[in-house]
């Protein structure tokens, strides 16, 4: 591993790999840092290297693309540091991480943030029960562990992952007890023109729906999870109808099903903690999944030496992420003086055209993944909003009534978002609830980003030391 990278790339998903390849092309000393143990991010997460696929194709094109990107990265010679939790980034771009050998840091000249996205799950009663997991979590189990999320599974939420997961469960020998989609068939039809840009995906989606229907999986459009309850080792899941805005309808006709597990998700949220920590200029874009950084056409963020690409800048999918990453890498090479503006334009131009096409598709997907606002209205008083701190909707409301005016004041008063997930699970929901009162997400604000960017083991961070190794400052005055 190199100690003095010129450019540090945060995240080894498609955007990070794209940036690394572009930098390698122009002889820039780059280092890719990631908490995982292989490149690919969540979308191309590989199986453990102790696993050997049975030669059965059909693990999907994602697996092949992931393998291709890992090969390209290895061949490029770009240095990698896996298993590192990056926990602090200074405005001088000092990047601190905690890895298997303890704390370490780098001082690159530039930073490409390719942090990806986390899954959004809009709360409902029972969403904290073991056996309830995210659609993305189920995807990881299925793809990287070849494991079913349950034998009898309810799949619910919105967006294309619903059908991908349900299909994979059926293919793996599991049973999908029901698939509840917040969208109606009309929503999917309206998305068609944009999806036609990627006919492969469209056909695949259509094939999934057809196969599920043929297998007798009840496809419940315009339905949502009302509640999950523990039942022995499994769950009892109530599903009910919603209107186009996600508000409950015809509660008398709710259905309760027994299942091993409930897999549920409502789209993706860009991970922007690192960018916010650096004070990059952000704006709220519901269609892109939430708060996103303001970038120029060349992937530069609002401060010198800072670039960003991929789903962490707005959820547009893996194809676009790889292209945007390449552009970010080219721009960093340009700003370091390794290439001139002409070379940059010649290389970035074609990428940008392909990126525009990928983004049209990504935007359509994002729209399908965005939860309707009525879901938040339907959140009842007893529902836990913040999982870590068990803060309920009623407690959030109380704080709002006694004058909390933005998400950070609410956090102070209720401890909502103060637990170990650092607000990642509840942030979007809380902001949505605050926005019902403040009128907009912009006015509701976003959590102030803090270090450490992930929880850190004290023992690992403090390391082995004697009292003399503590750099005590001078004494306070008496």
């Amino acid at each position, binding site marked *: 591993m190199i100690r003095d990278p010129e450019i540090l790339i945060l995240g080894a998903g498609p955007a990070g790999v794209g940036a690394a390849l572009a930098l390698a092309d122009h002889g820039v000393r780059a280092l890719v840092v990631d908490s995982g143990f292989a490149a690919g991010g969540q979308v191309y997460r590989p199986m453990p290297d102790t696993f050997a696929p049975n030669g059965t194709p059909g693990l999907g094109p994602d697996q092949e693309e992931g393998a291709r990107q890992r090969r390209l990265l290895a061949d490029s010679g770009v240095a990698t540091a896996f298993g590192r939790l990056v926990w602090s980034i*200074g405005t001088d771009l000092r990047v601190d991480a905690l890895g298997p050998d303890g704390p370490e840091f780098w001082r690159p000249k530039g930073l490409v943030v390719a942090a990806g996205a986390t899954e959004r799950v809009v709360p409902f009663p029972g969403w904290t029960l073991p056996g309830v997991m995210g659609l993305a979590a189920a995807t990881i189990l299925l793809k990287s562990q070849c494991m079913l999320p349950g034998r009898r599974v309810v799949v619910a939420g919105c967006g294309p992952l619903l059908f991908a997961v349900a299909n994979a469960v059926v293919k793996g020998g599991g049973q999908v007890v029901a698939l509840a989609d917040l969208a109606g068939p009309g929503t999917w039809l309206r998305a068609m023109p944009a999806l036609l840009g990627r006919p492969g995906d469209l056909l695949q989606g259509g094939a999934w729906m057809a196969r599920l229907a043929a297998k007798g999986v009840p496809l419940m459009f315009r339905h949502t999870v009302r509640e999950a309850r523990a039942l022995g080792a499994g769950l009892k899941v109530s599903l009910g109808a919603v209107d186009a805005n996600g508000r409950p309808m015809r509660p008398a006709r709710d259905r309760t099903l027994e299942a091993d597990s409930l897999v549920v998700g409502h789209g993706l949220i860009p991970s922007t903690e690192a960018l916010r920590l650096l004070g990059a200029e952000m704006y709220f874009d519901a269609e892109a999944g939430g708060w996103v950084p303001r970038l120029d056409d060349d992937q530069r963020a609002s401060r010198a030496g800072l670039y960003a690409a991929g789903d962490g800048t707005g959820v547009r999918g893996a194809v676009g992420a790889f292209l945007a990453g390449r552009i970010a890498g080219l721009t960093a090479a340009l700003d370091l003086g390794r290439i001139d503006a002409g070379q940059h334009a010649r290389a970035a131009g074609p990428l940008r055209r392909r990126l525009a096409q990928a983004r049209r598709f990504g935007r359509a997907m994002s729209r399908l993944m965005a939860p309707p606002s009525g879901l938040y209205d339907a959140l009842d008083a007893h529902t836990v909003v913040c999982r870590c701190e068990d803060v309920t909707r009623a407690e959030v409301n109380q704080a709002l009534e006694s004058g909390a005016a933005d998400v950070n004041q609410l956090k102070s008063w209720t401890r909502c978002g103060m637990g170990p997930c650092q607000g990642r699970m509840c942030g979007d929901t809380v902001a949505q609830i605050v926005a019902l009162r403040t009128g907009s997400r912009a006015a509701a604000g976003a959590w102030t980003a803090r270090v450490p960017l992930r929880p850190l083991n004290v023992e690992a961070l403090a390391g082995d030391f004697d009292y003399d190794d503590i750099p005590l400052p001078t004494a306070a005055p008496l």
Partner: protein
Amino acid sequence: MSVNDKARIPGGETFDAAVVGAGVMGATTALFLARGGMRCALIDAGGVCREASGVNAGTLTLHMTRAALIPYAMRGWDMWKNAPDWLGGDPGVCTTDGLSLAFTAQEAALLEERVEARRAQGAPIEIVTASRAREIEPGLTDDARLVAHCPMDGYVTANLTGHTYRRALVEAGVRLYENAPVTGIEAGDGGFRLAMAGVAPRARRLVLAGGVWLEDMLAWLGLRIPIKALVNQLIVTERVQPVMRSVLGIASGLLSLKQFANGTVLVGGGWQGKGDRARHTTEIVPDNLIGNLRLARYVVPALAETRIVRAWLGFEAETSDALPLVGPLRGIAEAYAIGCVHSGYTSGPYFGRLLAQRILGQEPEMPLFDADRLLATP
């Protein structure tokens, strides 16, 4: 803006007193002024207790208090302990034992000297044996060379302070202007006019309580008092099983360690980060975070098994002699300042009450800290 605009500006009303800065000291001053019968406005660029008063360690300790401030801190400690009586609520106040530790010969000498000085001012601090120290704090390391104990210690849950104060202020009839930055003050015949977006309240009396921003506020009145901004680092763990029950510090004052009832452990002690008060930005210095954490882990070995989840920084104001600025501003009738109290959480409410007494025309129970000594010669 000129005085003639007044008629056209909504809310350009006149108060008996305007307090600029809604931290513990400003808010307590406003609370007691309102209870003393004054129509009072409390104005802040942010919310109530959202700067130092909402983000610092909330430690109520005599171990870290400057010797000269011990009598004030003891009265402040009493006020916090009885918060429901005068604040109408409990911002998570916990009173417990406090230990100050020494691990080297040098620290032991420092501790002895400091204990002596604080005792001379009335602090009930005494040196205890190692076995007594372990009795008081079973979580403590075996390595302490000398330990001082004070039964008057504890903490406030700083993130709840604003919530509690806000309710009390509203109930007392204080007019709150939140998220309302004051951009200037005009001192005129018989009062002050505050320049703010959209409104321009007037007040017969003015209290500046702006923490590290006091320097700028004093400049509005043509006064030059240099005020240093410390940028104090705080670190908190996730909720863990009980690992300690007291408040722990070290002789030099560079550790403040406690576990809240909810299980989170707060590590502080004035290790410095980077900050820019004008731009309102702060930043952790990673080596200082690791250093502070090592010290905490050394003092309470069980912390090794915990995880930290958040670190942040708060501004602390300090005058050139590190003593408070609490009292009238000479040369400007009915203008006052309050701030720069070292270990300010402990004595903050008491200083607010003292200043309110002075403004209400009563004799303050204890002497104030005059601004004159700090005025820079032009």
